[in-house]
């Protein structure tokens, strides 16, 4: 089990795209440190021969046939957009 001391709040907040205040960072680091400490006990469970469960019940091959259905109108698609122009969503200039 990894040591929760490695918890780097700045790195994780950057990955999660969350601008945290210094107060939030200090508070979360401490609170999540407690939670991670609690979680450490999972390391005691012997899972060497256990399959991981990604779903509550494993079902396979759930799909639909390739038959198009109507979607949203442009107006409905953009009705909640914070900024739009020419029926497209406006974002600050993307560099990459």
């Amino acid at each position, binding site marked *: 089990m990894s040591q929760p001391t490695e918890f780097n709040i700045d790195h994780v907040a950057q990955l999660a795209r969350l601008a945290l205040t210094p107060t939030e960072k200090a508070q979360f680091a401490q609170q999540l440190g407690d939670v991670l400490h609690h979680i450490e006990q999972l390391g005691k469970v012997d899972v060497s021969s256990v399959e991981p469960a990604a779903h509550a019940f494993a079902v396979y091959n759930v799909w639909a*046939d390739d038959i*198009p259905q109507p979607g949203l109108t442009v107006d409905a698609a953009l009705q909640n957009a914070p900024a739009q122009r020419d029926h*497209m969503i406006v974002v600050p200039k993307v560099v990459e």
Partner: protein
Amino acid sequence: MIGLEVHVQIKTCSKVFTRVATGYGEPPNTLTDPVVLGLPGALPVMNKAALDASIKAGLLLGCEIAPVCKWDRKNYFYPDSPKNYQISQYDQPICLGGSVEIELPGAARNLMGEHRQVALTRIHLEEDVGKLNHGATDSLIDFNRAGTPLMEIVSEPVMHSAEEAFAYLTSLRATMIYGGISDCDMEKGQLRCDANISIRPVGQTTLGTKVELKNLNSISYVSAGIAHEIKRQIGVLERGGTIVQETRDFDGTTGTSQSLRSKEMAHDYRYFPDPDLMPVKIDASWQDRLRADCPELPFPKQRRFLERYQIPFTLASVLIWDRGLADYFEETARLCGKPQMAGNWIVNDLLRELGASGQTLAQSKVRPSHLAALVQLVDSGAVLTNAAKEIFIAMFASGETPGAIAERSGLKAAPADTGELEQWCRDAITASPKALAEFKAGKDSAINAFKGPVMKAAKGKANPKLVDETLRRLLAQM
């Protein structure tokens, strides 16, 4: 060494995880629904046709089809990705291994080059992202493309030159088109290519530092970009520098590249199994159904054409790249029994007229039966080559049969008046005792010396086959 990551859009009617229609060139944001836009509460559902197409691609490329594959979320923030995660396949892709057969350029145009197998690492299925349109001060997003089924075909880093990469893409593209999997129109973004390039100085056994080159969005950019990057890396090493592991963007218009991000800024994608989608089990009978629908690929077809039809490489290498054209050739050859003549007409005349008129093969009024009939008219001597060319043009325009055109336009060879022809032949032989002596001495080609005067006497309308027969008969009597 070069490895390519090729993204191929699969030709389905609806998107990979929802049933709104796919399309290109539609007005912005008209091909969306709650799933495409990643609205709160929307859930993905697999498209069976996209799975079929991916398995078929794997079968065509000799991959091992995974008995079970699953879906993972690739987490990263980018405005063209509506959910800020892309549904993809991480550690259990749908196809593993396989290879793409490539043909390198021959020593001359009429000589076939070396063939090689370029090994594949894997093929996985994922969803395409939206399209960003960059303005002066901001960017605009159109989500029409988002959710289009996309295969990522990853090769091993085993190619050595831009030439090989070009040959790889050409072959892969043809395979996808042959299989009906994608139209692979690079202009429409249906095939996109990134390259991983590392150079290895002679004598060194380990691979050098890998540089990823992005946005090689036309086949010519792929060649140019790779050639440029190899040159750039050699230059860095020669100046005593070191290659940095990074991602670079190739600008095809200027022929230069610039760094996008270094390894330190590499993404942490936090892959995990998508809980909204169930895994896929692929059994033998599913594979068999798709295998039955797999066509012969271009290079096996080329080998067969060379062997079975005995046509030259220059013809075979043109005929094989388009499945429709290859089928057209085989049908014509079957109907007329003269493969090489059929091949010549298709490659020289039909393709020229199609190109000039902007028609596709399917639109052409000249069907294999027409062309076969024309070949037979020429072969039997009923129509002379020059006349046949005229007939072909008329046929291409009207779709009439060649026989009808020949009849109507008087383009048929002169009817055989054997008495007159025999006299012209005697005259020609008598006029050239030197050729007669040579022919008698066993030089068969000497017979040609008599044919010119005969044709001249016939004003070009004699049946060359009959002329040949008559000459030989008379010569045998002398």
